[in-house]
């Protein structure tokens, strides 16, 4: 109990590196999927719209951890087996995209209709309207929500410790087993998560103020 906790740090920081890696990869996958799903939900084809709605409702209606277990333990039985990192990135990416697609949708609907009318009056074509008028405004509206989702994602990556990926939480469990110093280990793990997420919350606050200027 009296040993200073510094000897635990190298292993935990290595885990934190994996956490950041998973967060970064997942964020990219989730961002791309978010836009695809949002466009599918706004598409004129009914079948596509329906499929996207089911995707969002199912992923938001069940827990991320259940979805990860599904990918990790059940897909291999159907001959599709992925490593823990791939499973983590795909599983969390799909889960986050269900929330992200709603952000995208809300962002596009929040751009006032008269903006596209004005673009039409200026004789901009469809692509120009989207590229120069709609998308820039929608992106600014989406940014704070995406920032919040990123914070949620950092915390959600702790779940992938349960599918054997050696990230921060998993390293913590290993260190508890080998050293038995559970207070120091879990205290440090909490602290490291905090140090990763807190600066982001400040950043999101700034982005919110920036975005508010365009209202």
């Amino acid at each position: 109990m009296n040993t200073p906790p510094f000897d635990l740090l190298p292993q935990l920081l290595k885990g934190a590196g994996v956490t950041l890696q998973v967060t970064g990869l997942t964020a990219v996958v989730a961002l791309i999927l978010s836009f695809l799903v949002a466009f599918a939900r706004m598409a004129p084809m009914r079948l596509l719209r329906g499929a996207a709605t089911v995707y969002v409702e199912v992923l938001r209606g069940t827990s991320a951890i259940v979805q990860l277990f599904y990918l990790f333990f059940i897909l291999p039985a159907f001959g599709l087996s992925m490593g823990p990192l791939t499973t983590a990135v795909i599983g969390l990416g799909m889960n986050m995209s269900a929330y992200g697609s709603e952000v995208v949708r809300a962002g596009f609907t929040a751009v006032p209709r008269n903006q596209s009318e004005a673009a039409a009056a200026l004789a901009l074509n469809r692509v120009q309207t989207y590229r120069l008028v709609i998308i820039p405004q929608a992106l600014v509206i989406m940014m704070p929500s995406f920032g919040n989702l990123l914070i949620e994602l950092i915390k959600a990556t702790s779940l992938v410790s349960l599918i054997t990926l050696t990230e921060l939480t998993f390293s913590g469990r290993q260190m508890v087993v080998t050293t038995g110093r559970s207070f120091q280990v879990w205290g440090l793990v909490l602290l490291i998560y905090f140090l990763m997420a807190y600066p982001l919350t400040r950043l999101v606050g700034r982005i919110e103020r920036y975005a508010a200027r365009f209202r």
Partner: protein
Amino acid sequence: MFELGFAISLIPEMLRGLWVTMIATFGGFALALLVGSLLEAGRRSGVSALQSVCNGYITFVRCTPLLVQLYFVFYVLPAYGIRFRALTTGIICLGLHIGAYIAEVYRSGIDAVGKGQWDASRSLGLPLFATWRHVIIPQALPPMLPPLGNFFIGLFKETPLLAAITVIDVFGTANAIAGRTFRYNEPYTVAALMLLAISLLAAYGQRRLERRFAKAEG
């Protein structure tokens, strides 16, 4: 790959797990409502030390994962002689975690009540307690219901994490069955369907409740 008969035979055991999930959900949410109001009361107390503690708590809890908080409470407290059952630990953690989010809901709900309402209450000579009870809270509550409903459903979806600290909820039951029979598809599918059914049902109930309140507001 998926045997319907086997899946159906699991339902009674899974329902017992689901019952534990519901206990954790309702217990955790009740505690979260309480923790949230204590935190919000602390932030409005005017005592600056208490305000900093409450703000610090909320920031820290919101910036760290629930799973690690569960591990911290579950594995650290017993070392200091404090022992709870796993389910009790889970409910306490859920309450402490979601309470930090609910404090924010309370805050924005209360802040949304116009300043003129406070002034009017004071000019009517209403005491502080009566102001809260008859003027502020009745107006602050309806706008809080949608976000509170979201956090209730969110908390419900967090409960499978309790399986990580040995609670036999619906997900813990699925884990146990999978470990015993080496069949993963059926137990996890049944667990996922149960979770999905309840969260869709809860979302439907929430929409109806909101509509009723919207009507009552006129």
